[in-house]
Every structure is written in structure tokens, then in C-alpha cells.
């Protein structure tokens, strides 16, 4: 479903971030990517989302090279097939919860019927008319998860989704995210520093200078 082919990315001559990276993600997989700071995790996410272009190599989504698309086509691809969960939630303060969640549907010109159901699934049933300022951090991230999955994307990209949350809330959110990704038949790629977070994925990859290396799982629950 997602295939990385010989990706190279440098921000400056002496700052090579990704070197000849290749990897293939199967549909329905939910993987966690770990790695040291500055090793290129976020760059990898941006490349996958088409928000950045590799110096060489290709990112293929269902065989389509996203890096070959222009901005508009890439954006359209993203709005249909991608969901995003951010560390800082990025829930728009001036939209209600329903409106926030409905955003991808509006962008895709899709019917809004799933919004209430999604709200209920992330445990915020009946609170669609609330504004984000009435919510806690964990709740905001639930809204973000709902927004990421409302349009049943092929791939959910999550960048340190629990970085701003306490461990207990983080645990709930991660569980919810895994459940929703699986329930919607999406694939997932979560970038994190947290072993606890990574542990909720199907398997863990370690991003190093030498590429993505599978990590032997120490335990799975």
C-alpha cells in the first residue's frame, strides 16, 4: 500500500537525513517508528504525506508516486487517503467538535452522516456542539483521532500523538487510535519516542542512519 524506494533527503550538504531508505507497508498494518531525535522521523512523515519531496527516490501510495504529483494533486490525494494526528492536537478553536471532525468530509465533499457516530466512538457522544476550549488534552486528541478517521483514509499518520498527554490518558488514546484504525480498515504509521506508545503497534521499526530496522518485540498486549 505504501512503498518507499531508495529515498534520499538532505537539508544541507552536511545534513543528510535519510539515506537510500526503502520500505514497504502492507495494507492494514499498524507500525510504530522509533528513533533518536534528528534522525528524520518527521521528515519521513512529511515525505509520505507529500508535504515534502525527496531529493531522490520515490514514495508510492498504491503504486502512485506521490512525489511526482503537483501540489494540488498531492493535496487531493492527502485529503482522500490520509488521516493525521498531531502531538499538539491542532483542533481549530473556533470550530465546534462536530465541525472539526467534519472537516475532511467537507473537504472531500462527502456526506456528514458519520460525524455523530464518530463522536460516540471516541467517547464524546452528545458533545458535538462544544468548542475545543471546553475539552481536556486527552479529549482534544480523541477529537483529532475522530477527524483523522472520519473519511476512512487508507493511511493514518500520527506524529508523537501522546507527547502532550499524561501516561494514563496516553494509554487510553493509543488504545482508541489502534481500535479505530483497525475498525476503519486503515493502515497506520505512528512516530514516537515512547516505547509504551510504540508497543500498541503491530510491530516497531527503528529508524537509524542505515534505514528502517525491525525491532524484536519485547512484549505484545
Amino acid at each position, binding site marked *: 500500500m505504501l512503498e518507499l524506494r531508495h529515498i534520499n533527503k538532505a537539508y544541507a550538504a552536511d545534513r543528510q537525513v535519510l539515506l537510500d531508505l526503502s520500505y514497504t507497508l502492507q495494507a492494514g498494518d499498524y507500525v510504530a517508528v522509533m528513533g533518536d*531525535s534528528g534522525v528524520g522521523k*518527521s521528515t519521513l512523515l*512529511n515525505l509520505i*504525506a507529500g*508535504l*515534502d519531496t525527496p531529493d531522490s527516490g520515490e514514495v508510492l501510495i498504491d503504486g502512485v508516486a506521490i512525489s511526482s504529483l503537483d*501540489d*494540488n494533486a498531492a*493535496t*487531493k490525494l*492527502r*485529503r*482522500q487517503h*490520509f*488521516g*493525521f494526528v*498531531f*502531538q*499538539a492536537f*491542532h483542533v*481549530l*478553536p*473556533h*470550530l*465546534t467538535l462536530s*465541525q472539526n471532525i*467534519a*472537516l*475532511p468530509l*467537507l*473537504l*472531500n*465533499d462527502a456526506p*456528514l452522516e458519520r460525524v455523530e457516530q464518530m463522536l460516540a466512538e471516541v467517547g464524546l457522544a452528545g458533545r458535538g456542539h462544544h*468548542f*475545543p*476550549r471546553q475539552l481536556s488534552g486527552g479529549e482534544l486528541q480523541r477529537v483529532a483521532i475522530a*477527524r483523522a478517521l472520519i473519511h476512512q483514509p487508507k493511511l493514518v499518520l500520527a*506524529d*508523537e500523538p501522546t*507527547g*502532550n498527554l499524561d501516561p494514563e490518558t496516553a494509554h487510553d488514546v493509543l488504545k482508541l487510535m489502534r481500535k479505530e484504525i483497525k475498525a476503519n480498515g486503515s493502515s497506520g504509521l505512528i512516530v514516537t519516542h515512547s516505547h509504551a506508545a510504540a508497543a500498541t503497534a503491530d510491530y516497531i521499526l527503528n529508524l537509524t542512519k542505515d534505514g528502517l530496522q525491525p525491532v524484536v518485540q519485547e512484549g505484545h498486549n
Partner: protein
Amino acid sequence: MQMKTASLSRWLIFGEWRAHIVQWLAVTLAIALGVALGFSIHLINTAALNEFSAASKSLSGQSDLQVHSNQPFFDELLFPKLVRHQGVELANPVLEFDVVVPEKLDSRNDHKLKVMGIDMFRATAISPDLLGVTESGEQLDRLADDAIFLSPAAMEWLQVEQGDALQLNVGVQTITLRVAGGLVRARAGQRLAVMDIGVAQWRFGYLGLLSRIELKLSPGVNLESFKADLDKALGEQFFVTEAADQETRVANMSRAYRVNLNMLALVALFTGAFLVFSTQALSIFRRRHQFALLRVLGMTRRQLLRQVMQEGAVLGVIGSLLGLALGYAVAAMAVHFLGGDLGSSFFPGIQPSIYLSPLAATIFFVIGVGVTLLGSIVPAWEAAQAKPAAALKSGGEEMAIRKLSFPWFAMACLTLALIFTQLPAVSELPIFGYLAIVLLLVGGIALMPRFSAWFFSFLLRAKGSVDSGAVSTLVLARLANAPHQASIALGGVLASFSLMVAMAIMVTSFRVSVDDWLGQVLPADLYVRAATSGHQGGFQLNEQKAVADLAGFTRADFFRSQQLILDPERPEITLIARPIDTSDPSTTIPMTDDLMASELWPRGVMPIWVSEAMVDLYGYRVGKLVTLPIGDKTHEFFVAGVWRDYGRQFGAVQMQLSDYQVLTEDMSSNTVALWLRDGVTASQAERMLRQLSFGSVLEISHSGDIRTLSLQIFDRSFMVTYLLEIVAVIIGLLGVATSFSAQTLARIKEFGMLRHIGVMRRQILVMLAAEGGLLTTLGMMLGFMLGWAISLILIFIVNPQSFHWTMQLHLPWGSLFVIAAVMLVSAATTALIAGRHAVSGGVVRAVREDW
């Protein structure tokens, strides 16, 4: 320790400015523009006024007291009496009048030369500047019976040199004088001629008459008591005034005009202050985390407050200094190109030069800095009061900014404004009128967030049923649910648009009224004037008969007009005697509704019709009995009606010509209005007039030309208000630019997220333009209402109170729509340009927290 704090605050200030240089430049520019505008208007006005009073002072000299009559001229036999009067050291007789220069008759409003007749032996002590200088040094040539001395400006204007002949009109005669020399100490630009008093009396028909007598008192004489005694001794025909009174009088002539300009400039400065406020507010909200962090790290509230205020102060200082320099340059240029009266003809015949007074510069500097600090204090206070822990959390901006909106305050402002409109003028200035305007603006701007929340929620709900379009949802939701952040951009638009609307409505109403009025006051086809001959009008009975007997006219109305002084501290009023249809005076005079039917007139008292200014300035009311000095005595009249006069803001009175002739036995007239017979063209009629024996000296005007010219003068005098409007609009657009770019920066993460989830660049731009456009539309809607309200204040309060005339309301829909469209497009464009960051590559990275 102090040093460290200082360098910290410097780092913070420079860091902030480096990051947002454009915004801060715009704010600095706005302050500079506001200060420049106020300062330049002040400079121009002061220069013009100073020059005008210096010019009139150089004419009136260094006397202790002046004796005037309530008419322009009085019997010279008062002069020897005053010379012998106890306590008078020197009495200087002066004859002052205007003469018509035949060669300049074409320029209708600029064909008169001021002539002063002086006694050189007496004038040396009081007004030495008026002594003519002969080339040969032959002093006695000053007494020659054909000698006239001209100021350099007059020589240039008349294109004559020493030794040349100069022709001047006296009544229907032309006389020739010799330019005997110059008045080297006349002020630059001052057009003036000086002659020997005896020669002037003789050649210009003022035998036995003087205009004023200037007195120097003996040492040790108490000025006050002497003045009071002399005033009493001379009786009611004469006024004894001091030089200071003269200055007051000169200042009074243009005071309303000057104050009005200054007020407009202050309103522009106020718009600038609002811009400072919005920029500071936005900058502070953007930096909430930074400030919260500083608080956490140990900066006290007071230090933080000082930090923010310092930013404002530095901006204020730079902007104000820039403004002073700019203002000086603008003033110098305006005086050079438009003249000291900015084209309004309030200060004729002078050429002022700008004088940079340190005091004035300091005052405007302080105003500029003060206004900036005022704009900073509320945001600074908010920043200092914010709880650091709460501020560190994201998403609270709208809550924080909400604190800055005070609907109760807005309502209080509007209510107060309403009350102020009901208050009378303060020392003849519409102070409360202007306060009401400022309060309306403040109140309107403060009410803006409420209004926009209400308006856009309504739109959002209306659209909700359609449920389509992410962009429109995003736009409307933001405008409806974050009204404070949105509308902070709007203050400038609102302020400048309402000012423009107000000025446009006022100027249009005024212009239409003046146009109508001109139609009413110029019913005849031709107006023919003759130069005055001494204190008599130029047409004596013979000439009147000759004109009336001409075949080309169906009707000839003769007018006799002259100046009267009713109050020595006020400029002269004009007395116009003409045939008036008593049964319906509105056929000859542009009457207001305030008039008394002729059946109700008291018997045995002559009627007069007074201009609106007479009502305001002298308390004349319809039906009231008043006394006026007509002829040699004062007579009683009753006020039969009030008419509208846009030509003479200091007051005018009309009376029946026959009444005037009975009282004065003065059968002469200055002007004749002529109605053409059918089939006679104006040029044929003019030819007939020119063929009269005295035809060549007549000043013949077509009513159409007078009308055109009057409207041209009108337009020219409002030129400066257009300039003010443009500056206000620029400030308003700067406001849009700064607040949009500030908000774009503040919302960078929002755009980053939107780009992630699939919003296209173009959509973000559309969103920004739509936000800008919608906000501007709303701002203009509110601005229109505010502007309309302000124009009502200008038309029905400010104008009557300062200029003593009323007018009817006329709305210039066409130009208002054009202005609105221009504003809308420029605001949306500005928003777009300011928001171009929002689609830059960096945006997508902004979603990350760990950078």
C-alpha cells in the same frame, strides 16, 4: 542588575521586531502619518495665521490703542481732537481702502489692491514699515500728488516698476498714478500700496474721511482707564481697541476653520492610535507563551508591563520623530503649492513661511508618543495580568482577547455621544460635536466584535442547512466564533471608512446646498460692479439711469453694500441695501423658514433680513428690535426674517434700498443686477454696457461664471479634507495589513494542519481573502452607519456652530459605492498579501511542537 534587565528588554524588543519587521514598520508609519498630519496642519495654520496677523500688525503698527468707527470711514475732525487729547503722545491718522485695478478685472476675485494713506511724519513712530522708499532718496516725493508706493509683491502682481504709471479705478473713473518707489519692509507676498494721506483722500474721493486713528499714549498713562474713558468720551459710534483685540479679531476670522482642520487631524491620529492598539494587542497575544515563560522564569508583572510599554514607547518615539519630519516637509510643500490657506481663501494676500516652533514640535511629539502608549497600555496590562500557567496552554487567545472588549463601554460611548450632540458650542467652537464624533468612533469600534459575532453566526446558521464547502465553513466559523481576533483588524477600516463616508456626505450636502443657494442669490443674468468712489458706491444717479435706460434689459436692481462693525472683537458684517419684495422676500433672498409675514410687521420700524450668522453671533431673532449704525446715526430696525448665507460667515444684513436711501441720502450703488430681455444674448448686453461712457471700468460678471467660480473655490477649499481622507484610508489599510499579517502568523499552525488534512493552497488564499472581504464588508456596513451618524453631526452641529450656516442632507450614493468597492478590493488584497505566509512551505512544519 539594572543593566541585565535592560539588555534583556532590548533583546526581547529587537527579537520581536526582527521577526515581524513589516508589521512594526507599518505601525511606525501609521503613527508617523498621524503625527505628520496633525503637525503639518498645525504648522500651516500657524504659519498662515502668524503671517496674516504679522501682515495686519505691520499695517496697524506698534500703537497702544486704535480708534475705529462702526462704519468703514469717519470724519477726520476727530484726528485733531485726539492729538490734543490729554494723555495722547502721538495720534496717527490712517485711511485704508481697496481699489480696483482695471487691468485685473478679469480675475474676478483678485482685482483689488489695498491702499493705505498715511502721514509719513506720524507713521514713522508707529508703522515705519509703511514708509515708501524712493530710488533717488528724495523723501519729499512721498508727498507728491501722483505718488504711490508699492510692496514688492504688489509690483510683481501689477507688473510695474518704479517710475511706471499705474491705473486705478475710482467709481466709474480711471486715474493714473506714478509708482514712486517701493515698500521694502513689506512682508513677503503682502500686496500693499501706500500713499500720502492727503493725496489718497483727494485722488480716491475720501476727502474728510479716515479709517482709523492709532494712538501712542504718554509715558505713565494707564492704558485700561484711558481706554475706558476715551471709549465713553467718543460715544457709541467709535470703538477703542488694543492691538491684542486686533489680533483676536484676526484670529477669530479663521478660528473655526483652523479648529476644524485640527480636529480632523486629531481624528486621523486617533485612527493611528487604534492601529497601535490592535498591533500591540495581536503581537502580545501571539507572544503569550513567551511572556508566560518569562513570568515563570521570574520576570515580575511590573517588569513585563514595563517591557511591553517600552516597546510602545520606542515605536512612539521613532514614529513621532518621523512624523515631525514628514509633517514639516508636507507643510512646507503645501504652503509652497497651495498657499497658507490650503486653497480655502481664508488668508488672502499673504505668503507665509513655515516656522518650526520647538514647543509645537514637542507637543506633537508628546501627543504621538502618548497615543502610542495609550494604544499599548491595555494589551500590556492584559499581558502582565495573565496567569502564566493558563497562558502557556494553547488555544486561549480568543478568551484573552475577549477581555479587551467591553460592550458596556461601547454602549456608554454611544450614549455619551448621543448626549453630546445635544450640547451647545463652547466659546463658539463645536467641541462637544467633535467629542461626539470621537465617542461614536470609539463606541462603534468597541461594539464591532459583538456585531461581527452576531452577524457571522447568523450567516453560518443560514448556511448550515446547505452544509457544503469546507472553506466557507472555516471562514464563517472563524468570523462568528473568534470575533475579537477578527474584528481587531477591522478597527482601522471602520474608522477610516466612517470618516470618509462622513466627509463625503458632508461635502456633498454642503456643495449641493451651496449650488442651490447660488441659484437663489444669483437670479439675474448679469452682475455689474463699479469700484467704490470714496465711501460712496461707484454708480451715482447718472450712471444708474444710464444703465437702467439701456434697451437690452427687462429689469435692473441696484445694490448698495458696505461693511459695518457691530462688535470691535468680531470681523465686520456686511450691509446690503437692495429692492426687496416685502410680500415675499424669498423671491430675492434665499430665506430660511424663519420669517415673519409682512402683515405682522410692527408699524413705523424698518425691516431687515439677517443671515443665520447674525442669529448665532449677535442674537438677532425674528421680530426682535435691533439698532444698526446706518448713515451718520444708529437707527432701530426689526428682524423680519433669517436667510441663508454661505458667502459671509461673519454675518450679513439686508434692507430695502429705499429705506437705506431715506436714512442716508446716499443714492449711490455698488452693483447692479440685470435681467436680459428675450432675444438679447449676454455678450450683446455686455457690449451695450461697455459702450457706456464709463463702460470700460465696469466689472461685468455672468451669473453662470460666478456660480462656476464659486463652486471652484468651494472645491479648492475642501481639497485639504480630501487629503485627510486619503491619509485616514491609508492608515486604515495599514491596519488591515498589520493585523492580517499578525493573525496569519498567529494562525500558522492552523494553516499547517489544514494543509495536512488536504486543504489546497488556493483554498487557504481564498479563505483569507474571503475573511478579509467579509470583514471589510461588515466594517463598511457599520462604517457607513457610523459615517452617516458622524455626517449628521458635521452637518447639523459642527457646521452651524463653527460657520453659522445650515444645510440640507444629501447622500452621494454613487461615490460612496465607489469608495466602498475600492476599500473592499484593497482590504481583500491587503489581507491576501499579508497572508501569503500562510501558503509558504514552512507552514507544514509549523504543526510540529519540537522545533
